[in-house]
């Protein structure tokens, strides 16, 4: 009940299983690092089609960049979490913790 009312506060782009998986996996990489499409597929355990769909939406939101390069004449797709994407993910997890925290903050104040 609480969840339903609070859900609109959660970033809708990230709050979906597939895209959340992708965002988490990318956030584990050090800032600025890129990962190839097949390795990312490996990290999240998704089909190529499924992953492409999620990546497109994350790219539209500006949370990731997708770039293509040629390695030994083979096109390679690289995915990078943007600064905006990393920030959005941090805010998303912060919002989750607020949602899951007990209603009254008495215990927090006692700690201080």
């Amino acid at each position, binding site marked *: 009940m609480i969840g339903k009312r609070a859900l609109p506060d959660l970033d809708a782009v990230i709050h*979906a299983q597939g895209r959340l998986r992708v965002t988490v996996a990318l956030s584990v*990489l050090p800032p600025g690092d890129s990962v190839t499409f097949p390795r990312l597929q490996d990290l999240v355990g998704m089909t190529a089609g499924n992953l492409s769909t999620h990546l497109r939406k994350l790219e539209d939101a500006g949370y990731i960049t997708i770039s293509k390069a040629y390695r030994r004449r083979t096109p390679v797709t690289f995915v990078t979490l943007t600064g905006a994407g990393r920030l959005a993910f941090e805010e998303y997890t912060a919002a989750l913790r607020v949602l899951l925290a007990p209603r009254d903050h008495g215990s927090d104040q006692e700690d201080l």
Partner: protein
Amino acid sequence: MDDSQRSERSSDLGDESHLSPEESLALIEAQREKAARSLYVAPALILAVWGVAWLVGFGALYLTSHRGLGGALPAPLVTSVFLLLFAVAAVVSFGEQVRRGRGVSGPSRRSAALYGWSWLLAFVGLIALDLALENEGLPPRLATLLWPGSSLLVVGLLYLAGGMLWEDRRQYWLGVWVLITGAASVAAGVPGNFAVLSLAGGGGFLIGAAVALAGDRRPQPARP
């Protein structure tokens, strides 16, 4: 492209329908763990392999060099075992780095590549220096102290650098320990130096491996 909006909507319904905040948080933890396991080098494995190489390799050298025990082990066999153990440890370390970095590029991989080259270049420099000293007439007894002692100086410094590079305190302290072990081994003289390298050096790595393993197993503290 025309039906992208339609498919967007259907897939949104598909994967957003049953994701409560609790499930979301659980999914984040599980996915983070899975990705980290795949992307991060397992320090316990690498430290354990090096620990065994030092303990057994230098231990065997001690047994052959010791006057009282010298006859027990033939020197060519001991040297072969020693080189084999260190080659295996180097291959395992390098293999781990390559395997974890597969498909990843960017600043962290560039640092890792430069760090890898630092090992190679440092040892090329060390071998050149030690060989030059031997050519200049360094007595075998001192050469026996110089090779492992100077190697440990290089290894220790590179662990200090690795600790700085990855902000890894444990690696930094291991570097400090290796520097101390190296100096102590030279101070111990031949063949005591091999005992120091085997027990303090190998032991240090194995303790490091145990600490890393315990850290992995310890459940992550729940954040408020």
